């Protein structure tokens, strides 16, 4: 029985579960991983109701993944699942490589732990070092120290998550929508830099809200052919004739 406390996050747990399969990371069974993870989360929730959001987000995503992977082979949805499984496997391999790199680094004779440089460098170079004190890490340290001094009385604030805001999305939509000749999927307006799954979903939400906002202002049209289908955007004044069935109601 594994406890979640020992893990740095969902990916850490998944990697440990994958390593437990005792096969090459290229051939791990994602489906079995998913089942193990979901079982553990279920178990953990029974004990402690409050579980950090990222564990639950991963559980939700894995549930989705599982539903796809269980579909008959050959269907588009099943292929989508296979692709997502490969992305997950690749992320696990990346993390594994980093684990190995960290272990490799730790196994080196580390300065200050296994090997020691001269404890008392001489005056000749002592002055040298004092002038080279103008180094960037030192500067950052000093900056952080200054921040801490002034932050002594400040209230605790949870770490800010960098989220693609509605304002960001509005600016980007306004920039891009004019240049696109045809109905274009909402996803095309997301920022290029792929963030975490959470950030991608946040960007999607912000872009949709921004799109609705612009549609309300008459700058844009939105349509969606089917439930959960792609949401399409178009500049309002030049929409192709006869396409009036946009679904947005503001």
């Amino acid at each position, binding site marked *: *029985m*594994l*406890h979640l406390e*020992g*893990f*740095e*996050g969902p*990916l*850490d747990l*998944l990697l*440990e579960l994958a*390593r437990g399969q005792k096969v090459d*990371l290229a051939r791990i069974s994602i489906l079995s991983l998913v089942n193990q993870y979901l079982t553990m989360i279920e178990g953990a929730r029974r004990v402690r109701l409050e579980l950090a959001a990222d564990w639950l987000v991963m559980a939700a995503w894995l549930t989705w993944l599982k539903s796809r992977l269980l579909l008959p082979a050959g269907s588009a949805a099943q292929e989508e699942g296979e692709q997502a499984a490969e992305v997950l496997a690749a*992320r696990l391999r*990346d*993390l*594994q*490589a*980093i*684990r*190995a*790199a*960290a*272990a*490799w*680094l*730790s*196994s*080196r*004779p*580390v*300065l*200050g*732990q*296994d*090997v*020691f*440089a*001269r*404890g008392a*460098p001489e005056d*000749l*170079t*002592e002055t*040298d*070092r004092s002038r*080279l004190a103008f*180094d*960037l*890490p030192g500067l*950052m*340290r000093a900056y*952080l120290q200054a921040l801490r001094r002034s932050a002594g009385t400040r209230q605790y604030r949870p*770490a800010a998550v*960098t989220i693609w805001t509605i304002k960001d999305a509005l600016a980007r939509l306004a920039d891009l929508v004019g240049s696109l000749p045809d109905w274009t999927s909402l996803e095309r307006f997301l*920022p*290029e*830099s792929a*963030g975490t799954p959470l*950030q991608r979903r946040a960007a999607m939400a912000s872009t949709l809200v921004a799109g609705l906002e612009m549609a309300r202002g008459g700058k844009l049209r939105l349509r969606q052919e089917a439930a959960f289908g792609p949401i399409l955007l178009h500049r309002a004044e030049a929409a192709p004739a006869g396409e009036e069935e946009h679904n947005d109601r503001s």
Partner: protein
Amino acid sequence: MTDPDPDPAAPPAEEQAAGAPAAISPEALEDALRLAEAMVFAAAAPVAARALANLLPVGVDPDAVVAALRERYAGRGVELAEVAGGLQFRTAPDLAPRLRRVVAVARRLPRAAMETVAIIAYHQPVTRAEIEEIRGASLSQQTLDSLLEQGLIMPKGRKEAPGRPTLWATTPAFLAQFGLKDLRDLPRREDLLVEPPSAQPVPEVG
């Protein structure tokens, strides 16, 4: 930094002017060796090859001096190491257990910090969000502080992306700390994945 004037201690100008590195006297080589030894010994940080070459008398091959110096210290309690693009004397690794009892030992980096610095080393320049994505866990202020504190990482510009996040890179101190000549000394990613690493830090399993 060429210095055509022979200083009092150096051999006569005619000898040097010939410019044949092979033709230096044993005395001149010994003098260069002492000088190199003193310079590297005195320094707090690795001494760049260029700085050493500048110091040595004209006509002396720095590589030969370094080789002779390395040989002289081979097997001794203190050895000549090539790290972070320079030379540094370091205690022999086999003495570590006994030295740790008497020399102030730096704190080992916690696992999160080791992994973070490994990610930065392999993916630099890299943003905090990218580091977090690879680790699948958020980067704590504590981890960032400890890496900055030890001077292992530094900011290196900003990424042209929303919010212009800071990019992070490793420092020469990172190379020095782990005894690397340069970043190419790091094992290739493929090699890391092939053999199961022995010293794998595995989370507690209960």
